[in-house]
């Protein structure tokens, strides 16, 4: 049950952008450097976040990215759904899972789906939908000024 690098880096990039949104736009290169993520990969992640409507780009010499709405209105769950495609432990691409989802399955698999997978999904959604981007920005601040700590000595 792994979260991909898109989910992990995407969340970190959003914290970075949200932390500095008050003072303007955050250039991608800065996010990449401070988070230790390759610029190329970050572009793919950022494209997803932009399509998801969480950030918008600002062109120009002093351009970059900023949030489209306040950090407290962005749930971590929504970010992960866009970055990961789905939060479910069930794999939509797996033909066996697709059969299960279509209801063409036997008593054993249906019981497991209802009692285990769907239960886990609800539990995870409950947790990630209760955390906002603002919560994470706050926590980053508590761990020290983001500007000071992110450089390896």
């Amino acid at each position, binding site marked *: 049950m792994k979260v991909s690098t898109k989910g992990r880096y995407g969340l970190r990039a959003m914290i970075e952008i949200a932390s500095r949104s008050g003072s303007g736009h955050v250039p991608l290169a800065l996010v990449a450097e401070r988070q230790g993520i390759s610029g190329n990969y970050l572009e793919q992640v950022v494209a997803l976040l932009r399509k998801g409507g969480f950030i918008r780009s600002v062109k120009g010499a002093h351009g970059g990215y900023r949030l489209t709405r306040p950090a407290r209105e962005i749930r971590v769950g929504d970010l992960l759904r866009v970055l*990961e495609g789905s939060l479910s432990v069930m*794999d939509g691409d797996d033909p066996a899972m697709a059969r299960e989802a279509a209801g063409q399955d036997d*008593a054993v698999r249906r019981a497991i789906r209802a009692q285990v997978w769907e239960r886990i999904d*609800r539990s995870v959604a409950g*947790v990630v939908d209760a955390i906002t981007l603002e919560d994470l920005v706050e926590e980053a601040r508590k761990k*020290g000024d983001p500007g000071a700590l*992110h450089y390896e000595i």
Partner: protein
Amino acid sequence: MKISTKGRYALEALLDMALQDTAGYVALNGVGVRRGLSENYLEQIFSDLRRSGLVQSLRGQQGGYRLARDPSRITAGEILRAVEGPLVPVACVADGPGSGASADAARNRKACCPRIDRCVTRGVWIRVTDAMERAADGVTLADLLAETRANLAAASEGASI
């Protein structure tokens, strides 16, 4: 955060075994035939389950596997952990603070990720792990057995109309 086929098959196989409603040992090839699962894969899975103390094995003609304890005392979480390891969405959750890890692990965690001490998102992954564990440990094999039997009963009622 997808469940592996190993985890899914382990649950199916144990549920199938419990459904046989016997105090005796159940042969893996029977499980394989009933569930449409490869016997080879089942051998690997049951090897993990035995090592975790969830099943006992018996060699020979009347041999096979049986549950080591009552279905009401085996959770889905235990079954998944036995074959998949800790239910973590990101590797670093299994190391360092909050994992009950030793000093050795604390030293190792730096190798896992250099950011671990100041990482904010790790807290999210820890909470996700707790949520998954809580959910999976809230269901026992007995619960699954009851639901499966209810499904079977409903199906046969429907078929007889």
